[in-house]
C-alpha cells in the first residue's frame, strides 16, 4: 500500500470497499498530515478532528455492511465559505468572527450524504475576494510548490488557495471550492491540481457565503479529472431553496470519461493570447493543442471578440453585487460588533474593523457604481457587455464542442509581489473570468511545469450544462500530459 495521503479518491474508494484500508486510518493519516503541515502552509483555518473521527467510524460501519455513497469514507476539506452546522464558518473575515452556523450548506450536505468525511475548514481570500489567498484574516496560505532552488514563499492562487494547497500538499483527497472569477481554476493551475467550475446553476448556492450572486459557483479541487467527476456527481443537484439552481438530472460524470476525444471539435480562441502572457504559457498552450490533435480532436480557430472586456465588466458586476451581499454584516445578528455611540456609528466601526482592505475596496467600488447617476454608465453597461460575451460563446459553441486556453497568464507569484496594485492582481483572472460572466463550465488541469519549476494549467471550457464533454476532454488531455510531478515535501514538521 502506497502512502495513504497519496491516494486519489478513485484509488482510496477501491481500497476502502475491499477493506484494504479503513476510513479511520485514512482520516487519521490526513489529520496527522495537516498537523505537521499547517504551520508552514496555513491551509486549514480549523480542523474538526473529533467530528472527522466520528464520521470516519460511521463510514467504516456502513462500509462493513457493504453500504455507502460514492464518497464513503473519503476525507475532504471544505472552503471556509461553506456554512457547516456547528463548525465555525468565517469566509476568512474578521467580521464573521466566531460565527457558528446552525445549518449546513446544500453542497456540503450532499457530500456528507455521499459518505465524505470532513477534516476541517480551508483558508481563502476574505469573502473569496482575491487571487492569492493573501487577504484571509488567518494570514496568507503558502503554495507547497517553490521555485526551483529557492525557498521563497509563493501564493497558492485564490481565492480557493487553502483548497488548492491542501489538495496539492496531500492534506486531503479533495476539497470544495468556489469560483466567482476564476477562484477554483486559477489556484488549481498554480498548485498543479484539477479545478472544476461547473455551469452556473449546477450546484446549489444555498448556505455558501455569497460574494457575487450571479457569478458564484461551487466546484471541487482534486488531484485527477476522475476525482473531479466523482466529486461533482455528489455536489451537484437541484435545490428548491436556490431559485437560480437548475432542475436538470445530474448525469453520471464518471460514465464515458475515458472514451477519448476522437472527432471532438476543439476551439482555440485567438483573443486569449493576451498581453503579458509569458512565452512558456504560450508554448504550453501549443503543447495542449498538439495533445488534443494527437488524441484525434479537430482543432478550429474561433473568435470571442469581447474577451478583453470581460475583466473590466466583471469588476463592475462583482463588486456591485458584493457591496449589497455584504450589507448584512452589520454587527446586529452575528459576528463582530464594535460598539459606537449610536447604531450608525456601531455599523461603521464594526464594518471598518471587520473588513480587510480588499473587501473595503470592492464594497466601495460596488457602492460607487450603483450610486445615483452612475447605474446606467457602469452596472447597466457592464450587464450589456456581459450579454455580448455570452453571445460570443453561444456562437463559438455552434462550431465547437470545447474551447482550449491556458488557465493563467503566468505561474505562481511570490507573496506580496502583486498586492501593491489592485488592477495588476485582478489581471490574474483575465483568462478565467469570461466563463463566469457567461455562466459556463470550465476546468483547469495541470499540464507541466514552468521554467521556474512551478505548475502551469490548461483550461477547457464547454457549453452550459455539458460537464460531461468537458470532463471527457479534460481526461483525454490529462492522459496525454502524462503523470504530473508532486511538490517536494518541505513543509512537514515531522519527518
Amino acid at each position: 500500500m502506497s502512502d495513504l495521503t497519496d491516494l486519489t479518491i478513485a484509488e482510496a474508494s477501491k481500497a476502502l470497499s475491499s477493506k484494504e484500508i479503513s476510513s479511520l486510518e485514512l482520516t487519521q493519516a490526513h489529520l496527522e498530515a495537516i498537523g505537521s503541515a499547517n504551520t508552514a502552509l496555513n491551509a486549514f483555518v480549523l480542523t474538526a478532528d473529533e467530528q472527522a473521527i466520528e464520521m470516519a467510524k460511521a463510514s467504516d460501519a456502513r462500509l462493513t455492511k457493504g453500504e455507502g455513497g460514492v464518497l464513503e469514507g473519503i476525507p475532504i476539506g471544505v472552503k471556509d465559505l461553506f456554512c457547516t452546522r456547528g463548525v465555525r464558518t468565517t469566509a476568512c473575515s474578521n467580521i464573521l468572527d466566531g460565527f457558528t452556523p446552525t445549518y449546513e450548506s446544500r453542497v456540503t450536505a450532499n457530500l456528507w450524504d455521499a459518505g465524505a468525511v470532513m477534516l476541517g475548514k480551508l483558508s481563502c481570500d476574505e469573502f473569496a475576494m482575491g487571487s492569492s489567498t493573501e487577504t484571509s484574516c488567518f494570514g496568507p496560505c503558502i503554495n507547497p510548490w517553490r521555485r526551483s532552488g529557492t525557498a521563497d514563499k509563493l501564493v497558492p492562487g485564490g481565492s480557493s488557495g487553502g483548497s488548492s494547497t491542501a489538495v496539492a500538499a496531500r492534506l486531503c483527497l479533495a476539497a470544495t471550492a468556489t469560483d466567482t472569477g476564476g477562484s477554483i481554476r486559477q489556484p488549481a493551475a498554480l498548485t498543479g491540481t484539477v479545478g472544476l467550475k461547473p455551469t452556473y446553476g449546477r450546484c446549489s448556492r444555498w448556505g455558501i457565503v455569497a460574494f457575487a450572486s450571479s457569478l458564484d459557483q461551487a466546484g471541487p479541487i482534486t488531484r485527477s479529472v476522475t476525482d473531479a467527476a466523482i466529486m461533482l456527481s455528489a455536489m451537484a443537484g437541484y435545490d428548491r431553496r436556490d431559485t437560480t439552481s437548475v432542475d436538470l438530472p445530474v448525469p453520471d460524470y464518471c460514465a464515458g470519461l475515458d472514451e477519448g476525444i476522437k472527432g471532438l471539435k476543439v476551439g482555440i480562441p485567438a483573443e486569449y493570447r493576451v498581453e503579458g502572457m509569458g512565452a512558456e504559457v504560450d508554448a504550453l498552450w501549443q503543447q495542449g493543442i498538439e495533445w488534443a490533435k494527437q488524441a484525434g480532436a479537430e482543432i478550429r480557430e474561433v473568435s470571442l471578440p469581447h474577451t478583453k472586456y470581460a475583466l473590466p465588466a466583471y469588476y463592475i458586476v462583482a463588486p456591485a453585487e458584493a457591496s449589497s451581499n455584504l450589507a448584512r454584516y452589520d454587527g446586529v445578528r452575528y459576528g463582530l460588533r464594535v460598539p459606537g455611540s449610536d447604531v450608525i456609528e456601531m455599523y461603521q466601526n464594526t464594518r471598518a474593523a471587520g473588513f480587510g482592505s480588499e473587501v473595503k475596496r470592492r464594497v466601495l467600488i460596488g457602492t460607487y457604481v450603483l450610486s445615483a447617476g452612475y447605474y446606467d454608465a457602469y452596472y447597466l453597461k457592464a450587464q450589456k457587455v456581459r450579454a455580448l460575451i455570452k453571445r460570443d460563446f453561444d456562437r463559438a459553441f455552434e462550431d465547437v464542442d470545447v474551447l482550449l486556453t491556458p488557465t493563467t497568464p503566468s505561474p505562481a507569484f511570490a507573496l506580496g509581489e502583486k498586492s501593491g496594485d489592485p488592477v495588476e492582481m485582478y489581471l490574474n483572472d483575465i483568462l478565467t473570468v469570461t466563463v463566469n460572466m457567461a455562466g459556463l463550465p470550465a476546468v483547469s488541469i495541470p499540464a507541466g511545469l514552468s521554467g521556474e519549476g512551478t505548475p502551469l494549467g490548461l483550461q477547457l471550457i464547454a457549453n452550459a450544462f455539458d460537464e460531461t464533454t468537458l470532463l471527457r476532454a479534460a481526461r483525454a488531455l490529462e492522459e496525454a500530459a502524462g503523470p504530473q510531478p508532486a511538490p517536494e515535501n518541505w513543509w512537514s514538521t515531522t519527518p
Partner: protein
Amino acid sequence: MPNDARTSHLIEGDTGSWEIVIGLEVHAQVVSKSKLFSGASTEFGGSPNAQVSLVDAAMPGMLPVINRECVEQAVRTGLGLNAQINLVSVFDRKNYFYPDLPQGYQISQFTKPIVGEGEIVLDMGEEGEVSVGIERLHLEQDAGKSLHDQHPDHSYVDLNRSGIALMEIVSKPDLRSAEQAKVYVAKLRTILRYLGTCDGNMEEGSLRADVNVSVRKPGDELGTRCEIKNVNSIRFIGEAVDYEAARQVEILEDGGEIIQETRLFDPDAGETRSMRSKEEAHDYRYFPDPDLLPLELSQDDVERIKAELPELPDARKARFMRELALEHDVAERLVADRDVAEYFEALARGRDANLAANWITGELFGALNKLDLTIDRSPVDANQLGALLDLMDDGAVSGRTAKDVFETMLATGQPAGEIVAAQGLEQVSDTGAIEQVVDEVIAANPDQVEQVKSKPKTLGWFVGQVMQKTGGKANPQTVNDILRRKLEIGDDQDQDS
C-alpha cells in the same frame, strides 16, 4: 364632473387661493400564510423572532424563494384596480442600513413592477365622482420591528414581520382634499377586503399610508412636496393633510420655501414634524436582485385569476340599486364593507330588500356601534335577524315589538321566536277581541267620535287608546280597519303617498 370636485377645495390665503395636491403610497400587507420569500408564518403577534426563518434573518448564504400566492394576490389586486398586469416584472434590491432590515436591502420592485396603471373611482356624494389614477403596484418585503421603550439606551429588534409580503400601491397626485384622501383610502381598503388580498386592519399595521402633500396656485406647476410617513388611520390621514397643507400655505405666504422632506404625523398634537433620522439624503442603489430571476406570468394565469375575481363594490352597488331598488346612498353604505354587503344579501334573500337595508343601517349599526363590534362579530347574525323580520311579515309581531325583541336578542342571543313566545308578545289579530275593545273605546269617548268625523286624522288617537288597552299586542292594521268601519271613515287619501 371630476374637475368640479377638485376645484371646490381651495384654501383661501392672503395672497389668493391655494390648491392642495395629494398623492398616496399605501402599503398593504398581502394575505398569505407564509412570507414573500420564506416559509415562516405571517401570523400577527408571535413571540420575538419565533416567526423568522434563516432567510428572514439574513444568515450568510441564505436565498429567497418567492411565494406563488403572494404573486397571485398582487395580480388579483391589480385586476381589481382595473390595472395593467405586467407579464414580466423584476425584483430589485433597495439598499439601506437599518437594524430591522437584516439583509441591508429590501427586496422590492423598482423599474418593472408587477402591476402598472389603474384607476379607482371615488363616490364623493354631493360632489359626484372623482377618478384617481393608480400609478403602479409592486411587491416588496416588510421590515422587522424595533422596540425603543424596553430599555433606556438600547433598542430591541424582532424580525417576525421581516419578509412579510407588502403591496405598495402608489396613486397619481390626483387627490385635492383631505376628504378625498380619506375616501380614497377607505375605498382602496374596501376593494382589498373584497378581493381578500389584504385584511385592511390598520391597527395591526396591515394597511399604512405615506401621504405626499404639496400646495400650488391653481393652474401652476406642482409644488414641492413633503412625505408624511406611515399614517395608520383614515382619520389621521385627513388631519395630516389639513395640517400639512395649512403649514405649507403659511410658509409660502410668508415668502418662504418648502423643503422636500419626510415628516411624521403626531396624532396627539395633531401636527406633522420633520423626521431628523430620515433627513440624510438617501441613495438606495437599486439594482436587480441577482438571487431572483425575472418574474414571469402567463396570460392564462392572469385570465384564470380574473375569472375567479369576486364582485367588487362598484358592481355590487349598481346591482343593489338595479335589482333590489335600493337608493344610491343606502347601497353605497351597504357595499362599503364586504361583510356588511354579505350580511345584507343574506338578510334580503326572499325578503323586502328595503326593510332589510333599513334594519341594518338603523337598528343593527346602532347596536354594533354601541357594542363597538364589527358586523362579522355581530351577536345577531343574518339568519337570526331574518327570523325576526319574518315574524313581522307574518304579522306575528308589530314593528315596535320587533325592536324590543331585537334588543333582547342582542342581550341574550335567544332566537326571536322564543323571545316572542316566552314573553307573550304575539300580536292579537283576533277580530272579535279587538272589536270588543274598540266598542268600549267608542262608547267611552263620544266627544272624540264627534270630532273624528270631521277630522279623520284624529283616528290615530283611537288607535293609540286601543293599543294601550291591549298592551300593545293588537295588530295595528286590524285595529285601524275596524275603527274605520265602525266610525264610518273612508281610506285616508294620503295614506299611500
